[in-house]
């Protein structure tokens, strides 16, 4: 039974070259599993909520420090001379922005909980279903410098991806998704928790190894910037690859290129 199915429906992990050609439209499998699609969009919503609330919290004190402590009486590592929502910050504007930290902090932590639980569900199921191994781990041949150079060059030319890439990620995508999922995402959660006085009372090493509470805050900012850069590139690439087909694939699971439909 299982064998019969696998003849009709190629598994998601088949190599880029053959997949698109052999899949008849009527029995096409999902480009993305339902779990990947649902967790993707929950993560999207949470990330936007975290970004907006994070910026709101930042403007109440747009100064960053290194070490354990920092305040308006100490020298910052760097600062943004933007209007602030607190009178303590003297950036030379004649006004103080309205205080938004109450709801921003509530929303920031609520979205963080939802995205962490969603991320755990995604990561655990990803290991069990082989999602990471099949869809995200680059093949041995793809991690050579030559193959990487070729992919980077085609990206720099903003070449429209081949039809096969509607079915499988290229090596750059695989590496950047793995980096976001297994490096940036855990880092942003860790640096966030390292700012919590209650959390670090139970796990002091979590902040000590980062160099202090203000260092954790500064690192949290930089990791967030890295995630925002990823988001920008991600969205640009979706437009390059074909907005409609990629959105369709991530919403309905059906793959294909824009060209086929228009």
């Amino acid at each position, binding site marked *: 039974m299982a064998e019969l199915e696998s003849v009709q429906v190629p598994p998601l992990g088949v190599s880029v070259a053959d997949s698109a050609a052999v899949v008849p439209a009527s029995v096409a499998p999902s480009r993305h599993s339902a779990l990947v699609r649902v967790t993707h969009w929950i993560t999207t919503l949470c990330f936007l909520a975290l970004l907006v609330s994070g910026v709101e919290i930042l403007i*109440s004190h747009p100064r960053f420090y290194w070490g*354990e*402590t920092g305040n308006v*009486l100490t020298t910052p590592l760097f600062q943004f001379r933007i209007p602030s929502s607190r009178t*303590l910050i003297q950036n030379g504007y004649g006004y103080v922005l309205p205080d938004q930290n109450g*709801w921003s902090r509530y929303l920031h*932590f609520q979205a963080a909980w939802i995205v962490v639980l969603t991320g755990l569900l995604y990561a655990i199921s990803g290991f069990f279903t082989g999602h990471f191994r099949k869809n995200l781990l680059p093949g041995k041949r793809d991690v050579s410098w030559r193959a990487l150079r070729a992919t980077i060059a085609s990206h720099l030319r903003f070449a429209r991806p081949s039809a096969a890439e509607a079915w499988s990620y290229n090596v750059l995508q695989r590496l950047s998704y793995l980096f976001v999922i297994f490096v940036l995402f855990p880092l942003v959660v860790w640096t966030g928790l390292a*700012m919590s*006085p209650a959390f670090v009372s139970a796990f002091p090493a979590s902040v000590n190894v980062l160099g202090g509470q*203000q260092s954790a805050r500064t690192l949290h900012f930089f990791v967030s910037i890295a995630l925002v850069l990823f988001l920008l590139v991600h969205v640009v690439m979706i437009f390059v690859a074909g907005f409609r087909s990629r959105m369709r694939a991530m919403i309905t699971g059906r793959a294909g290129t824009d060209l086929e439909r228009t």
Partner: protein
Amino acid sequence: MKDISRRKLILGGLAATAGVSGLGVAARIAQKYGLIPPDHGGIYGLGETLNYASQRLLTRHSLAREFSRSQISKRPLANEQAPPNESFKRLQAGGFVDWRLTVDGLVDRPAAFSLAQLKSYPSRSQITMVQCEEGWSYIAEWIGVPLSHVLDLVGVQPHARYVAYFSIEPDWWESMDMADALHPQTFLTYGMNGDELPIGNGGPLRMRVSRQLGYKSLKFITRLTVTDSMKKFGKGLGSAEPEGGYAWYAGI
């Protein structure tokens, strides 16, 4: 393919039903073990409850990080002006000898303590960090008497669940659960860095709750009440902060 998705749908439905009824059971257990914060209602109630419950499970007995004397901030940020109200000015003019901390509610022996009385009890000190929700921080040595010592003197009744505390500033009040109230680093603070507690840092008497953000460490406190429910205070959300849109639990 179709059959599989139908089966998945049914399984998903069953899982969702189990999940929802599981949540109901979880809520009842959480209530029993005091894991539900007073401001659990509203659209942000989920995140607030998860914050409070998880940190209560993880950190009931943990100690806030203490620092060495060399790490004390050279200029501890005094972010408070003296409260402009008349009764504060009158007490200040008298050198705060008439300052009283009244303790009432679910206690066997309600009492009022002068600063001199509080200072006569075994004094403790801790070098800990004050973190503001805005993002800034400083480290200072805080000197005072553990709140648990005063609570022992007045005799807290067994069904007590919270300690509410009030500033001389009207409409400025806070509360904490008994785990924090009896925590060894929760101080009635009257000294700082080897000296009197400056007015700019909340003197003559400030609550110090070291595992939570600065706003839990209420300044200029004059009264505390032991209670079994925060519903009786203000809008019932636990403190003045949730009434102004801020989370009651300030451990993160």
